[in-house]
């Protein structure tokens, strides 16, 4: 068993606001390589959902194909999961969200899955602002097919096969911002605290929340020269802020010194607090975010945190003028128009 999946506590188990233990947020045993970054993220997902006290049956786990996409099986056993096909999970998420807008959708994808084959669909999902937490476990390579470069492999990277990357990489954060995303974050699988906080905030966000997490492939892309290796990520991570998340059902009591932190209110009443670190980064400034990312790409810097946040973009389900109940659960009486309606249509053909 992967060591990063939390083991059940020995004593009287702690429970969350639903009275559920951490165990009830766990999944099947991971079959990934020992030390894979993805397992650390799985662990953070489990904790985040436990913290939030989301009822597992109200979660839909979606993924494509890849080592990363397998991980939806390794958390939230009590949730329906759909391991779809390579690169098209964004489209599945869109449909699932339309069918039942009460579900919390968590999509887990890889950089190959999202930035290579799935790039177009990812962009369209984002621009539609589908309500889903979309998490990319980004290792700059195709783990499951043995380490070929993906579209996020940085220019100049020498892959394990010896190939040097020459194309511009896809920066999924910058792209998400360009597509109008209202919640764009970058993190590192090893920064478990930050990942956990970001996931909680992402769940609270209404709309597409993109979290691009550098998640080293210890088997195929962990060598020197890789900007997605554990060592590189650990040594280069530069958090933009210290983040905290206060769910809507908890009292907010922030006691930062004035000017040292920003408190952002979310639509569901939750709050994000962003404590200033070295730079005074403003997550609300779209151009600033693009500038930061552009700078990071040019200089191979690795900023993490909530890169861009704008809670005020309407999600797709709101655009759709939908009833509140899930479409999936409507009774016949509400989905089959009346005899009279039928007759009135027939008249138009006579």
């Amino acid at each position, binding site marked *: 068993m992967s060591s990063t999946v939390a083991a059940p506590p020995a004593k009287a188990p702690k429970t969350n606001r639903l009275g559920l233990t951490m165990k009830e947020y766990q999944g099947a045993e991971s079959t990934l390589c020992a030390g894979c970054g993805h397992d650390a993220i799985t662990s953070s997902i489990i904790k985040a959902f436990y913290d939030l006290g989301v009822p597992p*049956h109200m979660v839909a786990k979606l993924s494509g194909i890849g080592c990363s996409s397998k991980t939806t099986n390794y958390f939230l056993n009590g949730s329906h999961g*759909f391991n779809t096909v390579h690169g098209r999970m964004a489209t*599945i998420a869109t*449909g699932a969200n*339309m*069918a039942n807008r009460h579900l919390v959708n968590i999509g887990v994808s890889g950089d190959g899955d999202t930035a290579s084959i799935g790039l177009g669909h990812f962009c369209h999902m984002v621009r539609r602002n589908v309500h889903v937490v979309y998490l990319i476990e980004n290792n700059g390579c195709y783990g499951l097919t043995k380490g070929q470069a993906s579209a996020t492999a940085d220019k100049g990277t020498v892959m394990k096969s010896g190939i040097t990357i020459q194309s511009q990489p896809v920066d999924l954060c910058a792209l998400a911002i360009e597509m109008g995303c209202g919640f764009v974050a970058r993190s590192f699988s090893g920064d478990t605290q930050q990942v956990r906080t970001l996931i909680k905030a992402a769940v609270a966000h209404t709309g597409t929340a993109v979290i691009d997490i550098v998640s080293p492939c210890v088997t195929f892309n962990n060598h020197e020269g890789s900007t997605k290796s554990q060592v590189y990520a650990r040594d280069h991570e530069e958090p933009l802020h210290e983040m905290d998340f206060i769910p809507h059902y908890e009292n907010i009591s922030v006691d930062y010194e004035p000017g040292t932190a920003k408190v952002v209110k979310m639509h569901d009443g939750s709050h994000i607090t962003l404590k200033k670190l070295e730079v005074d980064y403003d997550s609300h400034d779209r151009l600033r975010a693009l500038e930061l990312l552009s700078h990071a790409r040019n200089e191979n810097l690795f900023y993490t945190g909530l890169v861009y946040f704008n809670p005020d973009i309407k999600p797709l389900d709101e655009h*759709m003028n939908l009833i509140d109940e899930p479409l*999936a659960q409507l009774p016949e009486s509400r989905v089959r128009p009346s005899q009279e309606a*039928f007759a009135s*249509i027939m008249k138009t053909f006579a």
Partner: protein
Amino acid sequence: MSQAVADAAKKPATSDPWQQVNDVVIRIATPNGSGSQSANNALMRSIFTMGVPVSSKNLFPSNIQGLPTWFTIRANEHGWQSARNRTDLCIAMNPQTAAEDIAELQPGTMLICRESLKALVKRDDLVVYVVPFNKIVNTVCDETRLRKMVINMIYVGVVAHLLGIEFDEVEKAIHWQFAKKVKAAQLNTQAARAGYDYAVANLEAQTRFVLKRSKAAEGKILLEGNQATALGMVFGGLTFASWYPITPSSSVCEYLTGYMDKFRRDPDGKNTYVILQAEDELAAIGMVLGASWAGARSFTATSGPGISLMAEMAGLSYFAEVPAVVVDVQRMGPSTGLPTRTCQGDISKAYYLSHGDCKHILLMPGNMKECYEFAMESLELAEQFQTIVFLMTDLDLGMNKWLSDNFEYPSKPISRGKVLSAHDLSQNGTFARYKDVDGDGIPYRTVPGTDHPGAAFFTRGTGHTETAAYSEKAEAWQKNIDRLARKFDTAREKVPQPIVKNESGAEIGIIAYGSTDAAVVETRHILEHEHGVKTAYLRLRALPVGKTVQEFCGSYKKILIVEQNRDAQVAGILKSEYPELAPRFTSILHYNGLPIDADTLVAKILPQAGK
């Protein structure tokens, strides 16, 4: 134009031994986008409201404006609706094609042509009516823009006179057509009237073709297949649709949008459905699978190229057992092919869609009513069989106006298939997603959001056990894929069954499906009454086939399989299914993009009957 021809137009009406009452084919040649559609529809409708069965074929280019279009209206007391390779009355409005249009006509055909095209009439075996359209339209209105829009209405009036359509019906048809646009209705009526008056004053009525009030079309309706399909979705309880525009399927979702807008909105103005225009067909089918998996009745509509793009997801639907309905309004392929020509070229492609071993359920409506009913049925079957179901129509059915019996309000309640609720789970205790509990190969499923600890399972396109766990084991794989085959076999007798007309003593059994039905019905009539050849007929309405087909094939020496494709696609499937009967099969194929007509079919079948 010879003087003889000009004279013919003025010959007094005599009692004509060749007179055909309520049996005429009118062909109108115009440039695309020139607004002839309303004129053609008005003409057609005025015949319809006289009670005469009528249908039409619109032959239009893959172009928005300017290229040639031909609209053919067939009025026929018997209700024959298939294409005709004969024209009785030709209206030549299009200078681009007039020469050819005229050249193609059979001797004796009536021709209405614009004055400007007179010079192109170089034969004297036609009954020619030269009509000064420009002059007439000038009397109707003086805005150039409007003249362009109403000029076609003039031939409606002319035809009304020549064939004996009551002008009253023309007027009503125009008003129906323009509904609330009163001004347009008036102007168009004036144009039609001007044409009518001109004809009455200047053109000798002929006696060969006459339309008379009838009861044959009473109680019938007139509509397009895509409209019928959309209606089926509305009343089938659809809640999610995604689509990507493509000719000739776009209007399915466009009609659907109109109906849903009107009839599927809650009193508080909120929608009980979503229709989403996707970014491509991969997305369209992906969204459908996502929505279906999450419990919504879902479908998408497309045509050939979209079917190809949906191949991977079709396999996912089959193997992960997620419902989906795909309407394929077939157009001429392969590749981009002829987007505005009809064909039955995707049948075997859809049947076997995706890599690896998989086969799918196909419904193949043969008329308007079935477009409606099978649309509903496809939603039912997709959920009952938890798999992808294709509704195979085609451009001919989908975009042409056909006469139909009235539809019926659905009598069966909606059945969502084997879905377990939280309550069911509490009662049953256990639940194994891919277990064949009932011996029919169809397992039980749950949908996300079901509030029971045993409800959740993991859906995947990879190998899995009965309990939906990942497995690479040979036995698990085989067990599952064999169950899927069993499920498919269950479908054989559950899909819409063929309609069989046995004919004792006949040697030939015809098998056809979809839009060719109209031509086959007429063909059988001709074969029997004009050539003394009796034939049996099985109209396939779905795949996979079952016992009925086998029995039919076993009952006749020679089985002729009529298809509108080159590669004998359904014949191939039947040969696979019934190798022992395969030697009896002969394919009758037609694949030039035009709907097949009875004359062509008769000519192809006669040699098979030794004639």
